[in-house]
C-alpha cells in the first residue's frame, strides 16, 4: 500500500530531514511512527501527501508513483488519503456539519449524497447531536473527532494522523485512538505519528522509530523506545 525506497528529503537549508528511508506498509496495517522532535516524522507525512517532493528516492502509494505524479493529478491522488493534524484545522466560521460536508463539496459529490453521508459519519465519531455547533463551542477531543469525520467521509483507503492527540488530555486521546483503531478494523490503512508512550505501549501495533531522519527500529507489536 505504501512503499518508500531510499527516500531523502533535504530542505533548502541544513542537513537532510529524512536521510534514506525505506519501508513497506501493507494494506490494512496500523502503524505508529515515533521519534524525537525534529526527527522527520512530519516531513514523512508531507511527502506522502505530496505536499513536498523527495530530493531522491521513490514513493509508491496505492500503486501510484508519487515522485512522478504530474501537478494536475495531485488532487485525484490526495482523495486516496485522509489526514488529521494536531491542530484540527477546522473552518472556524462553519458549523460541524459544514466542516464535514466541505470535504465532499470540494470534490463535487452530489448534494443529495452529502446529506446522507454527513450524519452517518458524524454518528461514527459520536457527534451526531452536535452537528450545528461551531468549532469554538466544542472541546479539543470533539474538534478532533470532527476533523476525523472530515478525513474519512470520502472513504480513503489510507488515513494519516500527525500527532492527533498532541493537544488532548489522556481520556480524549484514548477516544481518538479507539476511533482510529475502529477505522483501521474497517479496512483503512492507518499511520499515526505520536509522542504518547502510554498509547503506543498499550496498543501493541507495529512501531517505526525514526531518529535524525533514519529508521532506527521497526517492530511488529512494538514498544515506545526511550531516547538514550
Amino acid at each position, binding site marked *: 500500500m505504501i512503499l518508500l525506497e531510499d527516500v531523502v528529503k533535504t530542505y533548502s537549508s541544513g542537513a537532510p530531514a529524512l536521510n534514506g528511508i525505506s519501508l513497506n506498509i501493507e494494506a490494512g496495517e496500523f502503524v505508529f511512527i515515533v521519534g524525537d522532535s525534529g526527527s522527520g516524522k512530519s516531513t514523512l507525512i508531507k511527502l506522502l501527501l505530496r505536499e513536498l517532493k523527495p530530493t531522491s528516492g521513490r514513493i509508491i502509494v496505492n500503486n501510484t508513483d508519487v515522485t512522478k505524479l504530474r*501537478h494536475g493529478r495531485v488532487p485525484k491522488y490526495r482523495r486516496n488519503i485522509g489526514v488529521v493534524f494536531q491542530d484540527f484545522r477546522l473552518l472556524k466560521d462553519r458549523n460541524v456539519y459544514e466542516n464535514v460536508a466541505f470535504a465532499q*463539496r470540494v*470534490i463535487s459529490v452530489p448534494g443529495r449524497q452529502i446529506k446522507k453521508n454527513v450524519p452517518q459519519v458524524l454518528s461514527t465519531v459520536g457527534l451526531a447531536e452536535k452537528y450545528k455547533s461551531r468549532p469554538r463551542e466544542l472541546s479539543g477531543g470533539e474538534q478532533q473527532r470532527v476533523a476525523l469525520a472530515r478525513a474519512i467521509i*470520502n472513504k480513503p483507503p489510507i488515513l494519516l494522523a500527525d500527532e492527533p492527540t498532541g493537544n488532548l488530555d489522556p481520556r480524549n486521546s484514548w477516544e481518538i485512538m479507539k476511533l482510529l483503531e475502529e477505522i483501521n478494523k474497517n479496512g483503512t490503512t492507518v499511520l499515526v505519528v505520536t509522542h504518547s508512550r502510554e498509547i503506543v505501549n498499550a496498543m501493541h501495533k507495529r512501531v517505526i522509530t525514526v531518529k535524525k531522519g533514519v529508521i532506527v527500529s521497526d517492530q511488529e507489536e512494538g514498544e515506545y523506545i526511550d531516547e538514550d
Partner: protein
Amino acid sequence: MRISTLGYTFKQGLKSIFRNKVFSLATIATISACIFLFGIFYSVMVNFQNIVHQAESGVAVTAFFDNDITDQRIQEIGQEISTRAEVSKVVYVSAEQAWNDFKDDYLGEYADSFGDDNPLADSANYEIYLSDVAMQDQLVDFLTSVQGIREVHKSANAANTLATANNLVSYVSLAIIFILFAVSIFLISNTVAIGISVRREEIAIMKLIGATDFVVRSPFLIEGIILGLIGAALPLVAIYFIYNKAIGYVMQEFAVLDSILAFLPVEQIFNTLVPIALILGVGIGFLGSAMTVRRHLRV
C-alpha cells in the same frame, strides 16, 4: 463541475464579497466610475459622430463643365466620378435647375424681371456628395484633371473641423478610459488578494482534501466577476436616467444649433453600450482576479 458544486462555489464567491465589504465597495465604486465615464464618453462620441456624419452628408463638391461639352461626355464624367470610393452620390444639376434654385433662394419675386433669359446658362454642374470629408482634397485634385471640367468649387466646411475634433475627443477619452481600467484591475486584484489571505487556511484544507485547482480558484474568479458586473450595472442605470435630461438641457441651452444637433435616442445608444459595458465589467473582474489567483494560488 456539478450544478451543486457550482452553487457552492457561487455562494463562496458571494460570501467573500461580504466578508471584506470595504474593499468590495471600493472596487465596485472604481469600476462604476470607470464604466460611468466610459458610458458618458461613448454616448458623447456616438452622438458626435452622428452629428458629423449628418454634416458630412451635406458636403458637396461642385464641378462645372466646359462651354462646348457634349451631353455624352457629361454622362461619361458622371459615371467616372460615381465609381470613386469617397463619393457617395452624384447629382446632375442642369442650367435651368441651377437658375431656378438661385431664383428661389435669393431673388424671390424680383426674378420675374429676368424674363425667360437664363443668366446662368453655363452653369450646368455635378453636385458630388462625399462619404468621407477627409477625402475632399483628393477628389478635387482628380476632378480638376478630368477633360471637360472647367471649374471645381469646394464647399466651405464645418464638417472637416468637426471630423478633426471628433478624432481628438476619441483619442483623449480612450486614454482616460484606459487609465481607469488599469486602476480598476489593480483594485480588483487587491480585493481578491485580501480574500485569498483571509481564506488561506481554508484553501490549504481544500488542497489537502483533493480539490482541483479549478475548484480552489473559481470562488475568487466568481467574486471578481460579480464585482465587475455590479460595477457595470450601476452606472448603466445612472446613465439611462441622466441621458435624456442632458439632451433636454443641451437642446434648450443651444437652441440655435437645433438644425445640426441630431441626438440619438437612449435606446439606440444602449443597444450597444449595455453589452459593451457588461463585457468590460466582467472582463475587468475576471482579469483582475485571474491575475491575483495566478500569483497567489500557485498550487
